[in-house]
């Protein structure tokens, strides 16, 4: 026979285990739902099926002469010198955003050629480049 004390302890421990398992499960689930993949326009061309509900980050260069502004949105083309991607964005634009410069944007794909961004990542100084972009440029120069 188990004593009352041991019983209490066992039930307490099992409750604790179950609770922590639930916590771990939900944490990991939320993690996989909320990670943002970084894709270049070429990566996007290679995707089989576009998931329009999944947020991603895209990056590349803002193509020269592609910027088109009206009072609601900013449209531009992001290129990795192999493939292009049309981007539409409304929101704050960092001052260092301009044609011919690198950009990283967050948002959702509409189809393989069109991306709706809701955030353009700020850069703190002109020399700083997000590591994702740096390796992308390195790859293409080779």
């Amino acid at each position, binding site marked *: 026979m188990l004593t009352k004390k041991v019983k209490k302890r066992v039930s307490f421990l099992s409750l604790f285990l179950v609770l922590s398992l639930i916590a771990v499960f939900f944490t990991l689930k939320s993690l996989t739902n909320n990670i*943002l993949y970084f894709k270049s326009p070429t990566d996007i061309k290679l995707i089989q099926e576009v998931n329009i509900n999944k947020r991603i980050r895209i990056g590349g260069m803002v193509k020269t002469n592609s910027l088109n502004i009206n009072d609601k949105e900013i449209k531009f083309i992001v290129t990795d010198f192999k493939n292009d991607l049309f981007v539409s964005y409304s929101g*704050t634009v960092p001052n260092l955003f301009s*044609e011919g410069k690198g950009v990283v944007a967050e948002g959702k794909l509409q189809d393989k050629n069109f991306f709706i961004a809701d955030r353009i990542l700020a850069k703190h100084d002109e020399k700083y480049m997000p590591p994702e972009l740096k390796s992308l440029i390195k790859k293409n120069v080779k």
Partner: protein
Amino acid sequence: MLSNIGNSILFLSVLLCFSIIYYSFQNLKTNKDSITKIIFQLCVLQSTFIIISFLTLIAGFLISDFSLIAVYQNSHTLKPALYKIAGTWGNHEGSLLLWVLILTLFSFFFLILNKNHSKNYRIYTLIFQNILILGFLFFLLFNSNPFSVISPEPKEGLGLNPILQDPALAIHPPLLYIGFVGSSIYFSAAIASMLSNYSGKLFAKSIKNWVLVSWSFQTIGILTGSIWAYYELGWGGFWFWDPVENASLLPWFVMTALFHSLIVLEKRNLLYFWVIILCILTFILSVTGTFLIRSGILNSVHTFANDPSRGIFILIFLSLMIFTSVFVLFKKLKINSYNVNFYSKETFVLINNWFMIFYLITVMLGTVYPIFTEVLNDSKVSVGPPFYNTVIIPVVIFFLFFMSIGPKVRWIKDNLKNLNVILGILFFSILINFLIFYLFKSYSLISNFIIISSFFLIFSSLIDFVEHFKNHSIKNYSRIISHMSFGLLVLFIGLNHNFSLEKDLNLKLGEKITFEGYSLKFEKLYLKEFKNYKAIIGEFEVNNLKDNFNLSLYPQIRIYENPNTLTYEASIKTGILKDYYLTMSNIDRSDYYNVKFQKKPFMIWIWISVILISLGGFLRLFKNEKKNY
């Protein structure tokens, strides 16, 4: 010249560290109860030297001695004096010297303020703290020397990054450093305590003030960082779950868990090894955070420049620290079975610790996850705020309830009483929540719970406060203030989140736009020259159509020449109930200006809540001082 002074002083400090360690070991061998005078003298000398070297570096920045690389890269003759001084710790090398300074000062004060504790324990603490100092001095001298010279001497410096030129950020690093470098002293003390078998209540007494100091400063340090982000980064938020921010939050969680557990250790002589683990973990997390950020392994929007060779040094040092502490821990670890009654204060402290560890693991997971995916399957990911929000916010609701009930439960064993009061407070909180919900604006289910639970904590603390006031006991004021302010913080963040208004517009000069009860007119645009920058200033008229309230805001685009940078300066009208926040940026030299208009309710109350939380810590410190000495 300054470089020679600085380098020789640092070199002498290394020698002093060695001699302190040597004399400490000599002192351990003797049977005397007191610490020899020479150790005190050496410690005074050591602190003096480090202070002088730090002052030397400040002097280098003040007189713009560009023969020092650190000064050349981070300063400029035209910079205001405040930012020249702040430039001292605004770069990697200088901040590392500040790091050594705090290590040394904490080592010195710990030695002289803990007179009543056992000699061996104090000596061992001194030895370990000096090993830490030595490690960082080597790092300073061989890898990141702030006194390195450049020749020929440049005429002009490169200047400090303009967005770092902000009062909040000028004081941010020292405050934060007192927090997480200060945690080094209880790291050393924890190892010393195990080696000298100086455990239990006395150990708790000797470190509790140090934990409080570092925790209170860490809190204020995190706050100044947030305020800076709000004013300077121009998107109106104050917390982005960015790796840099997370790195400052991780030790904070452990410190919070630590000083709650310390109360149990002091009052009931329980949880000794758990406290030791928390002590060690705090400092290890502080160093890990520094490692991840400085080495450039983690990609953060706040990253400026980094250098992998620093990472390797910190990594080696970190591994040595972890190895030593784990080794000592396992050698001394005894598993004691604790018999803790379920409904007692001890349980509630443990619950606090579980929550803190949960937050710690969650934030840590989100922060380091991208490293693993990159190494394992070469996919580049980032973990965004939604992850933290979905995982942490629901848990905070329960946390707030426990936080309200816990402090009132007695030690050892208690019975559930005052159920009526609790239900009354709960009813009242729900009532107020629904009043806000129906009178102003509806919000999501989870926001309802957040607001109810934060009101619950606030009201419980208020009732507690009144009871204490009636009994003329000032014992728990510090705790009540901190707990209540945490409730206020969550409440105001919740309200701020739900009642914010944000609008992005692309405007040309002279245009007017009406939206959601406001109109915004782009009135003027002009250029103005300042001492170290030029500013393009926009004048905007904001009109609240409901109560016909007018307001002019003047956001700026600043053009700095040294270094050549553009920044935008938000125009913020701070009020008791809400802030109006406007930023303007030019879109690639076209006629269009991108304007972000925001109404942010209760911003100032978020800052005040955090100040009050840390005030609680300082008050407790003050009270402890009065009691002990």
